[in-house]
């Protein structure tokens, strides 16, 4: 294709001076390069880029974007450096990985004893034809950290189960509940998270997945890097830092919006809500404190709330705050749990 050739450029320089309308080319390149547009429009521009017409002008415009690109504020790519260094056989990471793998084999034996004390247990389950799967179960009222054999780290929220193959050759994880993923980069082996309705594919990034039974939505929130999400309905979506995808499990609708990455603070203890409805908030609190919630009436309050609950807050404190914050309900604490009555 001529667009990649270098010789076309010199010919086009001459053309340029006599034809000022070639600015349309650089305008298309500039706007495409610097902004995001609807998927269909982006595809059209990509095909146009490959089209040999005005190839020299396109290359010039692309080079102008390269020159104008400022990346001073981007995070230092330490993980990418580690990944590249491992691939070209330069020291460090390789030995670290070997060490981690060894540590994990020990952990598989030791963890049950430790974990019971911590209220977390690990057991071998699901004898899949070839590989044994490990279920990592976090009871209600607790959160736990799971170190996977590839160096990825998960903060698993209360009432959640993460399953992964014991032989972690294929980086594949199943999730029921909520977990924050810090995925070790490995471009050659994508990391895949499956929930009932979503498949998230990544090569190295940080993101949160929520697929809680009893809540009608599943969400993927990306705090660093990017992921590709495949829905049960067959649509794919590329998400980047600050992007959030919400799947309505009932209707199959997908919503994309932005969030503040700091809202995933629950992974560091406590519980946080970002743009949640009161129904979602109550469901999450019920799981977090392991207290059954009973509901009467229908919630008509569709407002969304963003708030954080500290690690040490008691359920009484939390309910007192919610009572002041959220309109349209009354509550009573009884022996069998919390009774919510919607007005």
């Amino acid at each position, binding site marked *: 294709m001529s667009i990649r050739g270098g010789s076309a450029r010199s010919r086009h320089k001459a053309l340029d001076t006599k034809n000022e309308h070639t600015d349309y080319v650089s305008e298309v390149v500039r706007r495409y390069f610097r902004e995001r547009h609807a998927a269909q429009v982006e595809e059209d521009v990509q095909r146009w880029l490959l089209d040999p017409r005005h190839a020299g002008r396109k290359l010039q415009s692309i080079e102008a974007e390269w020159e104008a690109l400022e990346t001073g504020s981007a995070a230092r790519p330490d993980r990418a450096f580690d990944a590249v260094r491992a691939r070209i056989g330069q020291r460090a990471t390789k030995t670290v990985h070997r060490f981690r793998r060894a540590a994990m084999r020990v952990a598989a034996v030791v963890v049950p004893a430790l974990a019971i004390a911590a209220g977390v247990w690990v057991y071998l389950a699901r004898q899949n034809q070839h590989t044994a799967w490990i279920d990592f179960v976090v009871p209600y009222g607790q959160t736990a950290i799971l170190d996977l054999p590839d160096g990825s780290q998960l903060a698993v929220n209360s009432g959640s189960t993460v399953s992964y193959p014991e032989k972690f050759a294929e980086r594949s994880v199943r999730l029921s509940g909520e977990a924050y993923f810090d995925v070790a980069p490995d471009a050659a082996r994508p990391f895949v998270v499956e929930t009932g309705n979503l498949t998230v594919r990544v090569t190295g990034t940080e993101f949160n997945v929520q697929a809680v039974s009893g809540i009608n939505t599943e969400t993927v929130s990306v705090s660093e890097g*990017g992921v590709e999400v495949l829905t049960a309905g067959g649509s794919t979506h590329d998400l980047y830092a600050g992007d959030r995808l919400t799947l309505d499990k009932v209707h199959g609708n997908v919503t994309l919006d932005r969030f503040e990455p700091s809202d995933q603070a629950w992974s560091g203890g406590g519980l946080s809500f970002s743009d949640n409805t009161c129904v979602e908030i109550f469901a999450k609190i019920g799981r977090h404190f392991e207290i059954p919630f009973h509901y009467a009436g229908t919630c008509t309050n569709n407002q969304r709330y963003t708030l954080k609950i500290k690690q040490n807050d008691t359920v009484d404190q939390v309910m007192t705050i919610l009572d002041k914050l959220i309109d349209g309900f009354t509550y009573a604490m009884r022996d069998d749990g919390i009774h919510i009555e919607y007005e």
Partner: protein
Amino acid sequence: MDSCMNKFVTEETVRSLQSGDHQAFETVFFAYFNKVKYFIYGLIKSESDAEEIAQDIFVRVWTNREAIDPDKNFTTYIYVSARNAALNFLKKRHVRSSYVQEQIHVGSDSDNPEDGFFAREIDLLIQMSVSKMPERRRRIFEMSRNEGLSNDQIAQKLNISKKTVENQLSIALKELREVVSLIVLFFTAL
């Protein structure tokens, strides 16, 4: 902000890199990785793929280090690698598209008579502007332009006043006019 983000890599660093110096590779990596990654992202619009492609490029910088000419501008070398990798990725992604295959046979002759016409570019600029419009304005605009509905019909369909339709269309056109002056002709003809 980051002392490792050197703007330029010296000829000396490139020579050290050539002779297999790990420290030189680190310098080169941190000087260019983000720029390469976000440049590729700008072209292919998938960050995970951009990350992967950028890492591949730096693996190749190391494995092909002996072939790098220290007398030539290293930035140009990196730029050309990144650009070609991104365009190759797009080519693979769109290879099944009949449109591209058709175009490949059109040939690379940049002096062909179509050079004077920018209908495709203008169309893309319109598409990009339209895709950035607020939902309702976009819908009204598309009903008017793509479906050929009259302002009355649009008003009826969307259950809004004709005045609103007119206002929204006039804002839409004003936006487009700022982008592409030719659009005026195109539109008054409708």
